[in-house]
């Protein structure tokens, strides 16, 4: 109960920061919008290759793009934490009896809210471009992106706490995020890839998330891919969240 209440307090504080400086919510949209307008048209003419049925490119591409937004949009939230560690804000919270879980959870919740707003905006932009949305599947997919955001944001916070430096954090996160997105079939279906890349992508938890996202957008909620995708990202989110909290507890020791 106490931890939940404190999580709400921390969440409200973080959300207020975002509302005061909303520019980041929109800057993060810039990249997916570029993909939407400058990359997706290229795909259209590719329609008909394996995994990319002709006339269905939008339906395949957007669910992947949303997963990418969830990955990259949440991967860099650690920067704000580095700053608050440096200025002693986090230390001040740790001296109070407040729960350590709340310090992380409040921030992560804010990241989830920001991401969901972004995902809804991108989806709205895509409807005029031919995306058809199955409401039930879409709501489920939002839940999937939320869990991905929890996983990525927690990982970002864990690294922020461990490195306490923007430079190290930036290069580490880039090193991790780029191969994750390349090996998840976001841009092009993995059906196009040579066998060894397909094998490699099986080790990437987010490739399952992309499959799940595509199945959900097509309204195929009970699909096996959906269940596998959810199980994998939930496990990942639980693991990284636990890691972030543990790092915070050990921060100064």
């Amino acid at each position: 109960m106490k931890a939940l209440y404190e999580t709400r307090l921390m969440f409200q504080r973080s959300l207020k920061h975002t509302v005061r400086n909303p520019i980041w919510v929109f800057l993060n949209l810039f990249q997916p919008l570029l993909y939407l307008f400058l990359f997706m048209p290229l795909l259209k003419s590719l329609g008909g290759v394996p995994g990319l049925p002709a006339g269905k490119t939008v339906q395949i591409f957007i669910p992947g793009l949303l997963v990418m937004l969830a990955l990259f949009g949440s991967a860099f939230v650690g920067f704000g934490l580095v700053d608050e560690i440096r200025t002693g804000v986090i230390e001040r919270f740790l001296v109070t009896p407040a729960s350590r879980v709340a310090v992380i959870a409040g921030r992560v919740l804010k990241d989830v809210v920001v991401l969901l707003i972004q995902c809804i905006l991108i989806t709205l932009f895509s409807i005029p471009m031919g995306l058809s949305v199955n409401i039930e599947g879409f709501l489920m997919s939002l839940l999937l992106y939320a869990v991905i955001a929890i996983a990525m944001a927690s990982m970002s916070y864990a690294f922020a706490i461990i490195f306490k430096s923007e430079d190290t954090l930036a290069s580490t996160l880039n090193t991790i995020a780029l191969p994750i997105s390349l090996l998840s079939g976001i841009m092009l279906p993995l059906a196009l890839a040579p066998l060894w890349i397909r094998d490699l992508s099986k080790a990437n938890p987010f490739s399952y998330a992309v499959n799940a996202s595509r199945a959900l957008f097509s309204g195929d909620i009970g699909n096996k891919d959906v269940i596998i995708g959810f199980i994998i990202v939930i496990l990942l989110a639980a693991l990284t969240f636990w890691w972030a909290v543990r790092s915070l507890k050990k921060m100064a020791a």
Partner: protein
Amino acid sequence: MNDQFIIETKDLRKNFISKSKGKKKIVEAVKGINLAVKKGEIYGFLGPNGAGKSTTQKMLSTILSPTSGEVRINGYDLAKQPQQIRQSIGYVSQAGGTDSMSTGMENLILQSLLYGLDKETAQKRALQFTDRFQMSSFADRLAVSYSGGQRRRLDLALGMIHHPSILLLDEPTVGLDPQSRAYLWDEIRNLKEEGITILLTTHYLDEADKLCDTVAIIDYGEIAAEGTPAKLKDDIGADSVLLGFGDINTSKKSGEILSKEIEAQGVKVEDKNVHLYIRNGERELPNILRLLDSNNLIVESISLSKPSLDDVFLKHTGRSLREDDK
């Protein structure tokens, strides 16, 4: 351990492992500190940069775990009851800890809520403290726009808004103008009047001297001397005579001659200066000058003073705290 003491430590140590160029190095930041802070006193750590003042305070405030040693605060054992200790103490770190993207008011209210106060009380306290620390004119602005002094006042208010019985203040007045410093000293004395125990760190001699009931001189992670400022100075038992010379050779030679010929409690050569600790300095001064004159050593400046905490520091550590500040 004893009930009279509200903060006690036994052989408190902290080692950091720092990696530089791939090599692991152990930094012994705190090397066996024994503290006994009485309830209701203002206890000061006086020491130069890197002495281990902040490290000690961080351990007491529960955010840094000791490498070894025992700590009892307000009757609670640090290793077993950190949560109770957190409830008893307020801590203002050297960095402060103000959330600069929130207003002063929001900072204060959230802090109260995190300590478990209800909303109404939190609101009331925040108003009380903005009033008490004269922050009303800027409390509704984002803290990012505050001046250094305004920010420090908010830091301090955040540290005491939950009415702790012990306050740990890490360099509370660093960077403040003389007026704000005097104001804060008064505020700290008021807290003492209310029965709050205060453990502060400083590298300002006058702050330790005028504000603290007990001063611990800390250097290289150890307490070199401890006592009331008056007692520490009395223990030197001598006046301090500072002789300035034109060059290092002259000061060295003078130091040698003076230690041989004059009955002083201590002679220390530092650069072009010679420090002399001597009883009845006023009466000895003519003899000293005559002696130097007869050896053709030219004195460029002379000062005679009653011992200060800097002399205490110099006596116990062999260095001057003032030199460190330059």
